[in-house]
């Protein structure tokens, strides 16, 4: 590398850092002013910790407090008092929802620093569980999402009860099914069938994706893959799900679809890609009838990407 290239890079970086330092200094000055304008009860905090003063001052504009939260993340997990302040804000239903939401996000960030965050782990979990019944829909959904992805048994119980009509659902029914299905150790197949039967294209796709954990869903998935009236994205997902669930079964069906020129190109492409990259080589290249049909597909230029993919599979044959 030429010395001038290194010099240029260093000069650019130095300028950016200088600009950033100026912006930070000017923000700190604004923060001190904002803290001084706020609640006099926080006066002693204003002197030493303007950020904490602004954060805890509900009389200040939400935007000002959210900006503090946006700038806090760096060292936040080292300060127990800040974590505790954020837990209080999150659980304070009278506080501004944007501030609560930003505080919840920041707690999520702090939780990533696992060892440092451990003393607050239980309080954070409890705060998330409390938010499941919060009045604010966004906070509710964020909490349910975070808990469901981690297979929290309490939120699973709440979702299940809601789906069975035994309690309120904290999120829309379709989302409740989606989030409950994050844990495939639960018997979610009936809910996923419900989602598939009545959902939009996106919801049916999710139902099909999540069915891949349930062997009893095999026939449903096969039916979806064969259904030419079904949306392309749903059929594509069913190919992936069926392949995950029953690879050999899928391969037979994929060969059939891939060589059927009357089917949609996108579905044939998924079938061919899967056979090429994830299929059993003996099953693909040991099937003379399939290879013969593939020759015809490769010569059929009515669907060029499909033909190209077919030729690529033939070229990849161990015999070539």
């Amino acid at each position, binding site marked *: *590398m030429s*010395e001038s*290239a*290194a*010099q240029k890079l260093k000069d650019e*970086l130095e300028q*950016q850092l200088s600009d*950033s*330092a100026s912006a*930070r200094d000017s*923000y700190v000055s604004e*923060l001190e002013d904002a803290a001084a304008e706020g609640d006099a009860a926080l006066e002693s905090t204003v002197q030493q*910790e*303007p*950020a904490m003063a602004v954060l805890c001052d509900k009389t200040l504009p939400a935007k000002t407090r959210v900006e503090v939260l*946006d700038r*806090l*993340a*760096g*060292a*936040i*997990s*080292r*300060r127990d008092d*800040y974590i505790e302040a954020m837990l209080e804000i999150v659980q304070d239903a009278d506080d501004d929802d944007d501030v609560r939401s930003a505080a919840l*996000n*920041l707690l*999520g*960030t702090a*939780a*990533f*620093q*696992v*060892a*440092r*965050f*451990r003393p607050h782990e239980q309080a954070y979990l409890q705060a998330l569980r409390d938010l499941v019944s919060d009045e604010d829909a966004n906070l509710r959904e964020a909490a349910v*999402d*975070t808990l469901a*992805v*981690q297979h929290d048994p309490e939120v699973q119980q709440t979702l299940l009860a809601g789906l069975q009509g035994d309690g309120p659902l904290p999120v829309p029914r*379709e989302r409740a099914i989606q989030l409950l299905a994050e844990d*495939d150790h639960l018997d979610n197949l009936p809910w996923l069938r419900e989602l598939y039967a009545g*959902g939009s294209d*996106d919801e049916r796709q*999710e139902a099909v*994706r*999540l069915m*891949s*954990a349930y062997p009893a869903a095999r026939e449903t998935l096969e039916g979806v893959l064969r259904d030419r009236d079904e949306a392309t*994205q749903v059929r*594509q997902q069913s190919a*992936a799900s069926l392949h*995950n669930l029953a690879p050999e079964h899928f391969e037979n069906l994929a060969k059939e679809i891939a060589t059927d020129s009357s089917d949609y190109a996108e579905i044939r*492409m*998924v079938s061919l*890609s899967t056979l090429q*990259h*994830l299929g059993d080589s003996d099953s693909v290249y040991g099937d003379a009838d399939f290879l013969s049909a593939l020759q015809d597909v490769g010569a059929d230029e009515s669907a060029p990407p499909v033909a190209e*993919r077919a030729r690529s599979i033939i070229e990849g044959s161990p015999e070539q």
Partner: protein
Amino acid sequence: MRTEINISSKDAAGRTYLTWAPVRATIKLLEPASADPVRVVLSNNDSSRGGQLEFGTARDRLAPTLNLTLPANGAEIAFFVAGDFPKSSSADGDAVIKSALAGAARGALSTTSVMVRVRKDANTLSPAERARFVTALATLNDQGAGLFKNFRAMHRESAALDQAHGAPGFLSWHRAYLLDLERELQKINPSVALPYWRFDRPAPNIFAEDFLGRTNPDGFGNVLFSSSNLLRFWQTDGQAGISRRPNFNVQTGRANVSTDATTLLTGGARPNAIFDSGPGQDPEPVTSSFGFDEMEGNPHGNAHTSFQGHIRSASTAPRDPLFFLLHCNVDRLWGVWQWFNNRFDGTQAKTYFFRGTAGSRSSTDIGHNLGDTMWPWNNVTGAPRPSNAPRTPFPVVPVAPSPGRAPKVGDMIDYQGLLNANSRQGFCYDDVPYGIAPP
């Protein structure tokens, strides 16, 4: 008459992979026309395309051409070769060394194809580069049955996360984690390098159907893939697919993170920038910064929490392939900080505060001191380490001598082999040069 070049960063199949770090090479004359020495020039075969190289007889003085005199008896002459920053390869073997007679207008005594293999901004990858990466990753996953499951297991349980998060070894551990994964991907396709997600900029090409998948913003949070994208078969923990719902507009916006410049300022301005302030410090989180390792919060943590779904929580985050691009950018930021502040010498407090081993005076948690080996590659199990070791030993490859089978925290610092050529790890970034920034 011809020449033969041998470069000391070949893989098992004899293909050569270079980064910005100079590596030793030799050239010798074969079938000489006379008994006289021959003057040759090394250069790039095509300076208008492909990866570009530079050469020199000393590691710290390289240029796009090099004149050498080769003895007629076939004795080897040593030189150094490296990728010419920032001109990286986009395909295997697209950087070609030409050896020609000095003064000859045309003709080559030999050509040697290599790849300048660097980690690039994922938003700028070519379709072919994207496809190679995605296919290798999907192959490693093998619908949940492949080696990827061990990488997922390394970042799940609480005891495992203690080895990787919330303490100063965070950056070293993840540097090793990424390199381990990258080496496995390179066994599948050696031209693959991990790309990084510049989360402080819009990166719409990453969140596309032919790459890491597109989430329909008006839909149900589904991650959609193109028909040829094998990530549609992604499976972790027995479950198909990825759960990922961005909290920002991935087409036009950026994650809720600090900018690169703000991140590089944590730890202070050069020449006094520090990695970590050690125990007993109590930083005021807005007005002060007490070490570069604060970046574990922002931008690292903030990038994770810019989504709902798997990537939002430490125990589930590696279930989303985006995790590895996010962390690659975290590692790149450390690389930029090291280059800008000259922080490659682990024996210096400003480079790494906890320079002992666990249990020694002024040490911190096990796995986070400079002399500690890192789990799981060290195969040490049982409290306070986790109960099992999903990946051990660290993969050793012929293209780079470091970090060895059981890397220590300190082994990950001099990753380009700046202070010790044997520390070179065979990876680099498209915007982080070899060496240190000019004064």
